[in-house]
């Protein structure tokens, strides 16, 4: 031991007097680990493409998504209309591309809002326990007792039919999922010895929650968030179907799929392309989320 300590001391004195505080290029390493995961990169590529569609739809199509062309109804997919046209002669390719903007907006914003609120509620409930836990979780139980769609219907009906109101309705509906997932992982992380060690050094509650507990609960939060981007888009779809989601001419995948359900036997392209768009979005977000979870976990380093 004595020998050992002298050699390490010598070794140390060879280097400079100070060291850098921090991990070894954490961001770089996380990106590196992410890039090694091919499925995740594929997911990310699609997500980036979808974002591009949402931001610059005019770059991909010259058609106007809401302009009707009644002489050209139900045109089959062709080199002119890649995905064909719908019952009003609107170009489906253009509507799918522009619909990306609506769906992404709804999906991402409501996931962000419900994630932040849900994580805070779950973390506080799990960390403090007792009465606080009971109060918060009974409130969450009330939220969970109301079916998501029903809750959405009542909120949109009360506030009026618009995209911001739809986002509010969807966010409130999915808070409960986050709160429960976070609470459970906070409960299990709270018992870890390193949290006790943080208490022993005198760390404050906020520091313990944000530096010790939440970073170690990241995996289920990320999974829940990426999964619910897909579910949220689906719920929005359902509400649009009921006439409570996105107002009529605005292109939205769910609304497109549901409004063309009457023509499904004769004109398959009306439902298929918005459906594939929804599927690809859900799939790519899930791949991306899985890869992100693995990349953020330092223990999985190879």
């Amino acid at each position, binding site marked *: *031991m*004595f020998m*050992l*300590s002298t050699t*390490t*001391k010598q*070794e*140390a004195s060879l*280097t400079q*007097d*100070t*060291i*850098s*505080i*921090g*991990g*070894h*290029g*954490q961001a770089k390493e996380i990106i590196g680990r992410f890039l090694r995961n091919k499925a995740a990169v594929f997911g990310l590529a699609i997500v980036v493409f979808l974002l591009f569609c949402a931001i610059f739809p005019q770059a991909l199509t010259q058609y106007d998504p809401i302009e009707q062309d009644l002489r050209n109804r139900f045109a089959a997919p062709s080199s002119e209309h890649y995905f064909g046209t719908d019952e009003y002669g609107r170009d489906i390719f253009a509507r799918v591309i522009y619909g990306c903007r609506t769906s992404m907006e709804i999906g991402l914003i409501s996931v962000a809002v419900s994630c932040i609120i849900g994580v805070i509620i779950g973390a506080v409930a799990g960390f403090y326990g007792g009465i606080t836990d009971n109060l918060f979780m009974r409130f969450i139980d009330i939220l969970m007792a109301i079916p998501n769609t029903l809750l959405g219907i009542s909120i949109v009906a009360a506030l009026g039919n618009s995209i911001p109101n739809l986002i509010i309705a969807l966010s409130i509906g999915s808070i409960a999922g986050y709160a429960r997932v976070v609470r459970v992982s906070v409960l299990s992380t709270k018992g*870890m*010895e*390193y949290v*006790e*060690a*943080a*208490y*022993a*050094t*005198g*760390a*404050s509650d906020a*520091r313990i929650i944000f*530096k*010790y507990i939440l*970073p*170690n609960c990241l995996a289920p939060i990320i999974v829940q968030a990426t999964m619910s981007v897909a579910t949220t888009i689906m719920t929005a779809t359902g509400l649009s179907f009921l006439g409570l989601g996105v107002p009529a001419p605005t292109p939205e995948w769910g609304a497109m799929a549901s409004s063309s359900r009457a023509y499904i036997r004769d004109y398959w392209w009306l439902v298929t392309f918005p459906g594939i768009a929804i599927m690809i979005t859900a799939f790519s977000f899930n791949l991306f989320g899985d890869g992100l979870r693995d990349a953020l976990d*330092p*223990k999985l*380093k190879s």
Partner: protein
Amino acid sequence: MATLVEVKDLKKYFKTPRGLLHAVDNINFKIEKGQTLGVVGESGCGKSTLGRTVIHLHERTSGQIFFDGKDVSDLNKQQLKEFRSHVQMIFQDPFSSLNPRMSVSQLIAEPLLIYKTTKSSAELSKEVARLMDTVGLARRFANSYPHELDGGRRQRIGIARALSLNPEFIVCDEPVSALDVSIQAQILNLMQDLQDELGLTYMFITHNMSVVKHISNNIMIMYLGNMVEFADAQEIFKNRLHPYTKALLAAVPIPAIIEGRKRQLLTGEITSPINPKPGCRFASRCPYATAPCHEVDPTLAEVMPGHFVACHNVKEINQL
């Protein structure tokens, strides 16, 4: 020499569905500045709970704790934070006691950041580097994560964290039991060197008799929350008076081919620490138990100078 830590009638009971679990019952001890108290007992005897209660990681049920002459039994948030800068803990498992999301340098810097003891980031990194040198951690590990290091190096991180605020008293909760034997010796030597250099006071919790003999000045033997024997380290190994201590020491393996001693095996059920009945808690397993052992709590008595034993029959058993 001045007394640094003193504990009077300390009790810690846990509420369980079946009743009160007497984890720590009526413990009294003093630790002099710069000395080491070894706390020994089998698993579940309350030794870790005792250590955690002394430094307020568990709130005590009753009793008093004195630190550096001041009563620290009841502390408000501010006082508790101040108290914790003087008193630190080294944990048993260096695998689970380090936040896996922090690098070595971040882990060591954490206590310094909490107490804002350094003014600039340059000063902070200098201090972290100094601590790493003190505990013999090569600086090239500064940006590594704990899971990349072996047990011995991880435990050095734990020690560096404990030392970072210049504490006077450190509770060591089985700091070497998770390490393999060659590393155990390194860590124990490091802890002793640090004690000599910095004048630290240790409360050393372990179930390993050879380790405790190596490092302690005084030894306290615990059994189911009670203190059964307390004496100087050399004295305990020479004159074990309590029947439980005898059994405990007889269980220490000796590397000898010729079996020179009689094996003493304990039989009988361990008494439940939940709502224990009056009487000696060791009575059900004690080969010398008599009727009063099952009815009256034994009290800790000074049988020989500086040697305390809690046993009704200590005189008869040892022919004193």
